[in-house]
């Protein structure tokens, strides 16, 4: 049963941002790889391909008392069904509708044991329409949340805006989520290597994915409702206090915390403790060992809505030795 886990890329983006164009490119390009694509029923793919599966986004609330534990049951069913095929895939792409909250898709990969055994969430890729993004921000929370959740952002349609407008859009994206890698594109033209197989949810690659992860914080964006926050310390962490604090925090504020990740220097531990989560769901493990020359430091990152930086900082400081 030790089959390799198939990487799953979640493709989000507001209506008309260029998701379908990107999918068509992936399906029609000669890359020698086989991707199953799960599209929402409203999407219109130009490619007729038996690896395209139509899905109705069927979100349900887990019956476990946690209101933000929403999951895409249709994905669980489709992934199970795809595994019954003789032909195997190099990857699976899941396209969400333009107005979808990426939370339930991501949480599906934390929740279901069968899905976890067979697939791994690779990255959330968000396509942003350079011309319309700023306008979309005022029309609801979706455009903002899609950027907040992203690991990779395609800042698309750059040919339709002036350099000044583009800089403004990019600044806004960075203010919401400075940790996502931004690629500027036209007509969704991008090297597949830039969006596939990124390992953004791989605990062992948290450092690799963000080379400056431990370098500097990004706390300058106080005016945003959705923003990121980082906390660092070079004192060691008391694991019990941290578990208790984080557990309570996610229980209370999980609905507003979209993504979180961290690397901790646990008191007396020879290895880094790494974790990452979506809303209230979290994965954690021991990472690479601290070498003699390493500076033992901890860093936590939160991306979410209405984050109270001072409160979070105080809470974390209470967990330090």
């Amino acid at each position: 049963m030790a089959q390799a886990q198939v990487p799953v890329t979640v493709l989000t983006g507001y209506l008309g941002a260029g998701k379908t164009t990107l999918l068509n490119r992936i399906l029609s390009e000669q890359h020698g790889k086989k991707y199953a694509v799960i599209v929402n029923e409203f999407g219109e793919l130009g490619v007729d391909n038996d690896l395209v599966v139509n899905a109705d986004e069927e979100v349900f609330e887990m019956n476990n008392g946690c209101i933000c534990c929403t999951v895409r049951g249709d994905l669980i069913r489709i992934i199970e069904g795809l595994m019954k095929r003789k032909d195997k895939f190099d990857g699976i792409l899941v396209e969400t509708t333009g107005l979808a909250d990426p939370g339930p898709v991501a949480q599906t990969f934390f929740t279901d044991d069968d899905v976890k055994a067979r697939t791994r969430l690779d990255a959330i890729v968000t396509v942003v329409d350079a011309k319309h993004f700023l306008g979309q921000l005022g029309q609801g929370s979706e455009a903002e949340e899609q950027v907040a959740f992203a690991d990779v952002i395609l800042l698309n349609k750059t040919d339709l805006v002036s350099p000044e407008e583009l800089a403004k859009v990019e600044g806004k994206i960075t203010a919401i989520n400075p940790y996502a890698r931004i690629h500027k594109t036209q007509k969704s033209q991008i090297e597949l290597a830039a969006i596939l197989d990124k390992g953004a949810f791989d605990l062992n690659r948290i450092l690799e994915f963000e080379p400056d992860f431990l370098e500097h914080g990004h706390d300058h964006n106080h005016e945003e409702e959705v923003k990121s926050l980082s906390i660092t310390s070079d004192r060691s962490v008391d694991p019990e206090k941290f578990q208790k604090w984080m557990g309570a925090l996610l229980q209370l504020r999980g609905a507003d915390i979209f993504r979180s990740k961290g690397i901790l220097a646990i008191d007396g531990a020879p290895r880094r403790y790494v974790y990452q989560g979506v809303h209230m769901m979290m994965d954690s493990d021991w990472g690479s060992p601290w070498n003699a020359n390493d500076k033992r430091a901890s860093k936590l990152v939160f991306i979410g809505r209405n984050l109270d930086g001072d409160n979070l900082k105080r809470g974390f400081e209470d967990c330090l030795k």
Partner: protein
Amino acid sequence: MKIDLSNPAWRQTLPPARSIAADAPVAATAFSRDGTSVAFALGDGSVRILPADIAAPAAGAADPVHGGAVLAVVADPAGDGFVSGGDDGRLLRLAADGTATEFFHQKGKWIDHLAAHKATGAIAASAGKSAFVVKDGEVREFGPHQSTVADLDFSKDGGRLACAHYGGVTVWSIGQVTLPPRRFAWRGSHVALRWSTDGKFIATGTQENDIHVWRMAQATDMRMQGYPAKVKSLSWTADARFLYTSSQPVFTAWSFSGKGPEGKPPLQFGEEGAGLLSVVAAHPTAEFVAGGYDSGELQLGDIKTKRSVALKMADGSAITCLAWSPDGFRLAAGNERGDLLVVDLRR
């Protein structure tokens, strides 16, 4: 002739069996109504039909009849062939020689669950949020439900159809008189469903690793918790006294005689197998039960003597489906890797 697990032969050697490597995941298996042949639904789009007699010559690999994977197969209630559904959205009738004719086609949907009712000859198929019932050459749609139909089953008399979905179960009256559907609500996603063989209970397995059972007469319900994984396989005994469930390392049966199972532990028996049971199938007439494990082990259990014997050793490929021949002397099993197994239990 009877199956007797106290016969020392069961502990010394594995029973005679035919095993064929089909090289495509097996989604489902079923014996034909007359018990002479057994079909396996394969991930390459073909349905492999083998003689039930393990010594009889078997035909080679079959041509694909579905595009993509075959997701479900049941005995044709109106003949000696089979009915299959696939991720190409087609429902096919297969003659005993494998010749296929199409019942209907739901473009863009998967036909992933089938049920057949022997006495009425009706076939039920899930396709997206609806269930379709084919009877006397007529196709009727029941639905759409609030979410995709995750499983379905006929009532004992074939007059009703139960569909599992988010938020519970919907029971449709499928006779000539159209009655409004009945809803049995319980929050969450219900992923497996079996109607008890006496028609009195409907059991479901849920996303939250528990099982839920409704009493039809009183519309009251009960929940049984404590499984380490989703219960995707449920099987009622022929006399409806016990409900077998997967996702435990030993055979696990909830007793429905007397006051029912609520507040009592289930009956657990047999040798602990490797891994967890992935499929269970109660014997069609007697007190036996077959269980396939996610490790590939296959066991036969006897609830009377609380014994179990191995029919196949673990090999790392999860058992995905089981079926009993109508006479209960042969057992078919398929696994993720594509091995087709027919065991002859007469010894």
